[in-house]
């Protein structure tokens, strides 16, 4: 359903949502990150982009799979530790980050559903904020089948019309949130709908960066396996994990046992984020490493995002948020790399 919410009523609506744990972008120095609101502060809608996407709420960097224990004389025991029941709302989700969650959904679903991911996913309601102007100078969502007003993955989308928000509730969960403060929401008029249309069209024009003919890239990549292109592009790569850790669509992880006590044995099996850009990601115990150098790892990142994932899931594994471009310490720019791939050999 479509509604109007006056800007000055936003606070009151958020207050009505107190039964949920609310995550919203909050500022720490110059950096915005999604943090749980502790009650006194409200939701500040004047943020641009966050350092980490809201993926970290659904797919946290550390997840406990189970606890294990071996008491003397007893057998080993395992205690499954699924995420706690917690109805949560994330406010201020950018369309690219919400769309990214629909992509990680494909990975964590399928055969062998990942129950940890889905428990959090199903109990979290996503309230989006359309991008009137691009949050980052490196946004390129339009080039990867996204848009600054995309509804994919969201339960509610708010668009700033000036003095009010155009509120689009897209799911039953979204409707539930609106119903908690029925009196704050009014029907949109024809002028509102026109304004929405206008703002959406304008917001698309403001996106400065784009990759023309991105669809030429996947077939080109197929022929570039042995190309020295990757050595050249990866020359300045520092082998850190910034591009993949900031990325809202990346999902690689590691599983390790952490021991709290050896005798009696007590510990936890932990899942943590991991990245294909670290040298030890693919290293076998024998010392053999199928991707021994930076060039192979950069090639993997680009091919996985723009060829393998595309063929398997019919979507680029990228929603154009621009974080990897902005944060790379040596300015390796994925848009430039893709343009070079597209034009390679011509």
């Amino acid at each position, binding site marked *: 359903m479509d509604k109007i919410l006056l800007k000055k009523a936003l606070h009151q609506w958020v207050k009505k949502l107190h039964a949920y744990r609310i995550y919203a972008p909050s500022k*720490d*120095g*110059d*950096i915005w*990150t999604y943090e749980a609101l502790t009650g006194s502060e409200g939701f500040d809608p004047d943020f641009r982009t966050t*350092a*980490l996407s809201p993926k970290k709420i659904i797919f946290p*960097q*550390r997840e406990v799979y189970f606890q294990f224990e071996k008491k003397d004389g007893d057998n080993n025991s395992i205690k499954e530790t699924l995420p706690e029941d917690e109805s949560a709302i994330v406010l201020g989700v950018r369309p690219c980050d919400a769309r990214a969650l629909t992509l990680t959904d494909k990975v964590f679903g399928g055969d062998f559903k990942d129950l940890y991911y889905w428990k959090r996913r199903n109990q979290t309601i996503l309230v989006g904020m359309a991008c009137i102007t691009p949050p980052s*100078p*490196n946004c390129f969502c339009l080039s990867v089948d996204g848009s600054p007003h995309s509804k994919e993955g969201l339960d509610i989308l708010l668009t700033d019309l000036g003095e009010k928000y155009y509120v689009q509730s897209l799911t039953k969960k979204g409707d539930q949130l609106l119903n908690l403060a029925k009196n704050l929401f009014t029907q949109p008029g024809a002028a509102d709908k026109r304004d929405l249309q206008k703002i959406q069209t304008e917001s698309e024009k403001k996106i400065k*960066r784009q990759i023309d003919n991105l669809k030429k890239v996947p077939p080109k990549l197929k022929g570039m396996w042995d190309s020295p292109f990757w050595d050249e592009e990866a*020359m*300045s790569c*520092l*082998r*850190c*994990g*910034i591009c993949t*850790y*900031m990325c809202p669509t990346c999902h690689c992880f*590691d599983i*390790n046992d*952490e021991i709290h006590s050896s005798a009696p044995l007590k510990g936890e099996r*932990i899942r*943590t*984020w*991991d*990245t294909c850009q*670290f*040298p*030890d990601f693919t*290293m076998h*115990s*024998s*010392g053999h490493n199928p991707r021994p150098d930076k060039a192979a790892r950069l090639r993997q990142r680009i091919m996985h995002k723009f060829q393998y994932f595309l063929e398997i899931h019919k979507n680029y594994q990228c929603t154009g948020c621009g974080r990897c*471009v902005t*944060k790379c*310490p*040596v*300015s*390796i*720019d994925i*848009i*430039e790399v893709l343009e070079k791939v597209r034009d390679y050999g011509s």
Partner: protein
Amino acid sequence: MVNVEDLRKEAQRILREGKVKYVIGYEKDQNGLLPKPAFIEEPEDVARLIWNPTCVHNLTKFLVDEKKRKALEKKPDNRPVGIVVKGCDSRAIVVLLQEKYIEREDVHILGMSCERNGVIDEKKLAKKLKGQNAENVEIDEDGNFVVTSANKTIKFQAEELLAERCLECPANYPVIYDLLLGEKAKKKAAEPFKSLGKMESLSEEERWAFWTEQLSKCIRCYACRSACPMCYCDECVVDTINFAVTADTTASEKAGKIKWVEKSPVPSENFVYHMVRAMHLAGRCIDCGECERVCPLDIPLRFLNKKLEKEAKELFGYDAGFDPNKPSLVSSFKDEDPEDFIR
């Protein structure tokens, strides 16, 4: 005033004469303010090299990369590489030479003086421009910073935009070089270690609370370690698997490798990682500031290394990175070293 043409001429000469394999320098990034690291192989390409106050990166990390790459090649090209360095960067080279990680013949150093100034702090600039993007920053004859933004130029006093470390820099000109461009002029630095003042005035509890909050943000992307030229170990304390594995490494050796730090990015592990790294850099860090610049979550890492730099100076009278012939701090001792820990 430094003329970038002189740099390009010299780079072209050493490439043309085959004296170096390639030259590491800075080149313009069409889509951002900071330059990209450039690896110039052909003499015709030297026009790509730039030099201005946006050249913040410490390129000496790529000398470490070069050494590791050569180690894997069957018939490596043993010619040196050319490298464009600032004062701080040159001191990183000195440390690598002191530690015998590289030889003097491995580098052809193109030294650039910061001419009593230094490089910009991107965040300070962003605040001044109130969110507008900058395209370029140049230095004028008076030592002011001229910023180009949205097709306009704005002049700033250097102090308004200089990186914190530049304000405390002991010598903003290269201390080792094959070519030096610009004056060997020492600018009047602010009181050394001034930035530590506030931190040192906090109580132990306040400092613990500060660092617990800051290090809770850490996502262990290891960008700080990756950007640091002095972090060149093949196997780091945080690595949970053996890197230096050969066909002769036994399973027991691999099984016995101690996990010093868990992969979980929780405060206890993050503390261990950062503290150990800072200790391993004591007496070696030359404050290029890269660790803090690259951190995607703005953790003020420089404080940790700066504090140990101060201790090295106060306890042992040691300044890192000035004399390649001097032994490194942690691998030498003098009779007069303090011994108050012996009771």
